């Protein structure tokens, strides 16, 4: 199955919705929820291909996501200490509920609709000022970034104590040489979560990602087996730790 396709809302129609939602947020959660809708007269799915999500499918998405993160949606600002867990939980819920065709999820307009019509209260809880980059369906969109992280990392996103943080995740997924090799991304995530050396884990992660990216010049890492990738990442992690100890 190719997955579901959802209604798409153009940026031109989406932008005024952001303003409307921010205005409503001044009146509290109920005012925002009054603007929730499962359809929009200016939204339509892609013209051809894919099974169109019905209105009840969209309703089910909202219910499933609220089942997962609803206890954080109380009209108050999300505590900073909860942001990582919130994003990971949201990503998993979206992945499980949407069943969206990756091709459809690649479109900004799809996330415009899901964010501003279906789950605006969730988006506003995470980003109360909802700047355009977070409200529109850009790669940094409140929902889209959570979804793609779970798509790539799966339950690794929920693992660890502490879990993979914002900086670690951004560094992992922002450079195409690494980000498009999902096996490599997982191996790097495991290596970061396994860090038990001196200094900040996020700094270790940054150096490890850089070292591995450097290897993609002479080597095509996509052809390596899981075991070979694991060995390569392990070797680079050791090298980074050794280099860090020398400088301390």
């Amino acid at each position: 199955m190719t997955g579901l396709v959802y209604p798409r809302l153009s940026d031109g129609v989406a932008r005024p919705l952001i303003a409307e939602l921010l205005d409503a947020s001044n009146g509290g959660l109920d005012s925002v929820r009054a603007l929730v809708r499962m359809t929009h007269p200016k939204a339509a799915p892609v013209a051809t291909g894919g099974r169109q999500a019905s209105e009840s499918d969209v309703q089910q998405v909202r219910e499933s996501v609220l089942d997962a993160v609803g206890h954080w949606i109380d009209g108050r600002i999300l505590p900073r200490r909860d942001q990582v867990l919130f994003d990971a939980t949201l990503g998993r819920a979206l992945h499980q509920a949407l069943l969206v065709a990756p091709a459809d999820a690649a479109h900004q307009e799809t996330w415009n609709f899901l964010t501003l019509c279906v789950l605006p209260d969730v988006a506003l809880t995470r980003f109360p000022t909802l700047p355009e980059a977070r409200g529109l369906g850009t790669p940094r969109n409140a929902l889209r970034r959570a979804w793609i992280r779970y798509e790539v990392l799966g339950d690794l996103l929920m693992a660890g104590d502490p879990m993979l943080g914002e900086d670690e995740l951004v560094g992992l997924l922002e450079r195409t040489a690494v980000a498009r090799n999902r096996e490599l991304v997982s191996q790097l995530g495991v290596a970061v979560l396994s860090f038990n050396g001196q200094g900040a884990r996020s700094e270790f992660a940054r150096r490890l990602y850089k070292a591995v990216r450097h290897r993609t010049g002479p080597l095509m890492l996509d052809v390596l087996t899981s075991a070979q990738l694991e060995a390569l990442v392990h070797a680079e992690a050791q090298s980074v730790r050794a280099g860090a100890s020398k400088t301390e």
Partner: protein
Amino acid sequence: MAKLRVLPHLVAEEDAVDWSTWNRVFADARVPVEDRTDGWDYDQELTFGISPTFDVPKLLESTGLDLGDMELVITADCNSVQQRFMERSPLQVYLATASPSIELSIPPGQVAQELRLTAHLVIAHDVPVDGTQRAVLAGSRLSWSPSKRVVLEGHGGRFPTEAVSFNDLGLESAAWSVRVNVSDLNDLFAGCVRLLLNTDHPVGAGLASMDAAVYGAVGSFLRIDIIRQCILGVGKQVDELGGGWDFSADEDSVGFVVSEMCDYYIGKDLTSVFELVRTDPTRFERVLQERVGITIGMSR
């Protein structure tokens, strides 16, 4: 090879590899890849192939390796879904094939917007160090083609179509069904109108796979049915409004698009066409057939 990249090991001499050109591979044909892919949607698999040729002596001499050490890899990078798809073949196996080609199939719904296709020659496994500068690590790059950019999705309008199993939806086993659901003439056309093609039905399945023979046989009947259903669905709304609605402002609206259909196919405005539907439905059908045309073997 594309772009100058300095590597810490020996690479293939440039004229040791002729990468040739990319093809899009269908069940019964290979078509050179254009900059834009036509007729593709999320329900279709995409298969690309390439058939590079090698000057084997030059290849072996310049890399210092054996044929068995190398493999061919092709990749399709899709930035919008953040994924790379790959296919690989040992070079010896590739060269031993009568009409060698390496192909990569991308399942339906997995990519969007555009792809970059690249072919690579790499080392298949670790190779002993021999004191020369030859590459020794698995995955070492030896040669690569220029990337071919392919646009998958354009911005032109296409009729909203969905291939589905009518059995799954609990619908009668028709070949197709035109769904028109208009509550406001200013609503998006693409949101109100949808052609459902029944994948359980041979004709529906043929239309969904853009089979030329099926289109030739039923295409004009399908076109007439779509226009009829659109006119009936929208005309009713116009009728209820007493013809006082101006839908000229929004070119994406269902009212505007169907009005354009009436002008183009029937030569009358929507209100007049719906008046005809109401007063003389039999004549409306004849007008529709005459103006749209019933043909056998029309192209889609």
